[in-house]
């Protein structure tokens, strides 16, 4: 499986579902026998993983929104998405 790059267009696989959990007041990513509780940033990243936007576009948009350093955001987003891809919860 290829590693994520700036040009990857990450998407959620069919078995992963992103939804808001009102009982616990946060976003969750659901998969077979998996419930991943997401923090605000991770949820913001995953909401943009539509198979169209590139990783660099996603990171750029978030850096702007949170007024953060683009290089740092890119590194964080890449690490988060690579980890999810390794666990079969993201298509790189």
């Amino acid at each position: 499986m290829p590693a994520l790059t700036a040009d990857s267009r990450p998407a959620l696989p069919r078995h992963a579902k992103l939804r808001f959990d009102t009982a616990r007041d946060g976003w969750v990513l659901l998969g077979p026998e998996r419930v991943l509780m997401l923090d605000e940033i991770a949820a913001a990243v995953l909401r943009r993983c539509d198979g169209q936007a590139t990783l660099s576009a996603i990171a750029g948009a978030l850096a702007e929104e949170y007024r953060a350093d683009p290089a740092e955001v890119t590194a964080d987003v890449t690490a988060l998405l690579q980890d999810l891809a390794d666990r079969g919860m993201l298509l790189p």
Partner: protein
Amino acid sequence: MTAPAPPLALLAELTHRCPLACPYCSNPVEMVRAAGELPTDAWMRVMTEAAALGCLQVHFSGGEPTVRKDLEGLVAHAAALGLYSNLITSGVLVDAGRLAALAAAGLDHVQVSIQDTETSSAEIIGGLKGAQAKKLAFCRAVRAAGLPLTLNAVVHRRNLDRLGEMIALALDLDAARLEVAHVQYYGWALKNRAALMPTRGQLDTATRLVEAARAELKGRLVIDYVIPDYYASRPKPCMGGWGRRFITVNPAGKVLPCHAAESIPGLGFDRVTDRPLAEIWETGAAFERYRGTGWMPPLCQGCEHKQRDWGGCRCQALALAGDAGATDPACNRSPHHAALVALAGREAAADDAAFTYRRFS
């Protein structure tokens, strides 16, 4: 006292009926017959209440859940509630048309159990001739329908040597996940323990194989694997802790903290037809009995792992230590642990006895 955190998942045991007869089936020895099963509207209400309580997922299991003609409607209801739905099936009863209907109803995921990769062995274990070809065809149909697939391989002495083939089969069937589940010895499996217990050597080989395959297949196939209790040094957090993650409803509507909880004498179970599900989860006697750490024996009370494994499995403590409130003998601090290890070694060396199949008595 504060209310317990809500459950993550509802295990909906829709029926105990099943065309197979696996000798390790996790169903209780006393099974519910068709006439005693909850009707459709009751299951709909159970799911509505479970979602309101905080459940995020529903696992449709059994027995064989697809014997229920109303499964499509139940899946559609789960989808409408936003519950992630997982169908746990043997795959022998569903044709392409029914599968299409389930997919259209919004089914999120399918998990198919296999007994072995070798057809004759698989069919001896499952007790049903012709099952293997049907299962494999079903798995391919699941992927053709665009549904994600988990292959669930229940392993024991009689098939553990074919773990490599099971991994290859999961890849061949385009499963995203393989669950290698060692038999849990309660219920039917307890009756067949000597016929199923793996040897230490088999186990070590299997563990190495899984580790290598995990590294090689990272990002392609997720392999879930847990060391079986009898060879572990610390118990698993059974069900993620009693009354912490899962709420199980049996075919008759009894609400259980674990699918095997009925084996524990003296526990009274509420029914979904008598009380609201939230109330049962929060204050039901069976849930309160072993929730948290207050019930624990001194050995666990004083242990640094108590909030990691929650003292292990209550059903196993009962089966092996004679007391559901004891430290799980899978723990190497339990006074019963040495006897357990010796027993595993003895039974693993036993002859391959005939199985006691799971059947309605």
